[in-house]
């Protein structure tokens, strides 16, 4: 039951993009087309889940045993950066078009604070291993959901009659903020 709660909380209630406002850079950067945002979302799910698992092992297997918990941030960044490299190689191998579509935003997952955020929150909330992995996956799924929704809105906005002053990023910001407000409605669920 607790795992289910974590999953729902991660996807809807504590959505990283829309209620914690982490990882906004790629949220606005890669959400032009639904196709690429799906790819980006899957990459983030992968990185977040794996990063949660590995950082859990590092935190409790190495750092806590040696009393070096203060190295948490720097060690986690190391893990996240390496994982992103791995994902980048994998995507380049498997889908060149997705690799080109993601462009600069793929390496930018390294500095995506949502990934580091999920790892740190796992430790802060003292989740166990399973819960950490579930929370990581839920964070990634929430990210994917939000970015696909925004991409769909932007595709519609592209062909709509938007006032000239609001075309492009301004209308995207407004759409994103309205999404954040509507996601606020989930906070009563748990």
């Amino acid at each position, binding site marked *: 039951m607790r795992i289910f709660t974590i999953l729902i909380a991660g996807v809807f209630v504590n959505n990283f993009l829309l209620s914690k406002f982490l990882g906004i850079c790629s949220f606005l950067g890669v959400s032009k087309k639904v196709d690429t945002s799906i790819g980006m979302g899957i990459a983030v799910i992968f990185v977040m889940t794996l990063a949660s698992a590995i950082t859990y092992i*590092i935190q409790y297997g190495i750092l806590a045993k040696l009393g070096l918990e203060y190295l948490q941030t720097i060690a986690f960044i190391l893990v996240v950066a*390496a994982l992103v490299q791995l994902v980048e*190689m994998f995507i380049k191998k498997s889908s060149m078009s997705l690799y080109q579509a993601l462009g600069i935003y793929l390496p930018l997952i390294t500095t995506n604070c949502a990934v580091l955020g999920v790892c740190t929150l796992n430790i802060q909330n003292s989740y166990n291993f399973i819960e950490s992995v579930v929370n990581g996956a839920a964070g990634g799924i929430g990210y994917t959901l939000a970015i696909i929704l925004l991409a769909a809105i932007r595709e519609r906005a592209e062909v709509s009659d938007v006032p000239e002053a609001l075309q492009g990023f301004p209308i995207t910001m407004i759409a994103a903020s309205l999404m954040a407000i509507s996601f606020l409605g989930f906070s009563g669920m748990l």
Partner: protein
Amino acid sequence: MATQIIIPVVVLGIIALIIGVALAVAAKRFEVKEDERIPQVRAVLPGANCGGCGYPGCDGCAAAIVKGEAPVNACPVGGAAVAEKVGAIMGEAVDNSMPNVAQVLCGGNCEKAPRQTEYYGLKDCNEAVVANGGPKGCRFGCIGLGSCVSVCEFDALHMTDKMLPEVNINHCVACGKCVDICPKNVMTLIPKDQIVHVDCQSKEKGKLVRQNCEVGCIGCGICEKTCMFDAIHVQGNLAVIDYSKCSNCGACVKKCPTHALIKEGRKVAPRKGLKPVKKAAPKTKPAEA
């Protein structure tokens, strides 16, 4: 004390080492064979990432050239020299067409076409044009606030002290940024060996042109009649040169009553294959006044 420092360093070092080895193994497994010509082509491109070729930066251009989507002379910045090098890599002959160069199609400087209103806004043509089309009387002329100069990355454009931009053709690479930014479409790209220009864009009737500018084209059509090569025509109160027919002879320049036509002082190679088309004196259309 020392152990407090050494232990964290060693621990982090070991973690980093393990990750590094894992990445190295993964890099070998997921290695993608790129066309080796892409980095070669990329190396001879200028690397300005100006986007003048229409691709996202020099990397995009190099990839497109190797794929065959773009011609070997796709880079407008590098010109013939780069195209030759790229052609050598790609094993293709180079189409050495005449490079383009930016040209200011307006002669209305602050003396010839004075401002009619005072403008105190931002020093940017695209801002000024919002205020009733800019401070000049002529709706088609250069605003003279130098947006083209600030956008030029190759130091090829400068404002003269009479508030007109001036192209340094030795620096201009025809990237087209000035053409894109000019709200009045005064900037254009023309073949580099073209030295006769209509220095006016005004499609107003002759009387209005005269009111607003001393050197505007009034669409009288004298140049059209003078031209031996059928290269200049009045279209909508404005003389327009067909660069493929113009021989740079400058006969029209001498006849132009308003001096809207100019001939540059520099020397260019004569164009081949142009024969005078001797026209029967056309029925004189009365000049629109």
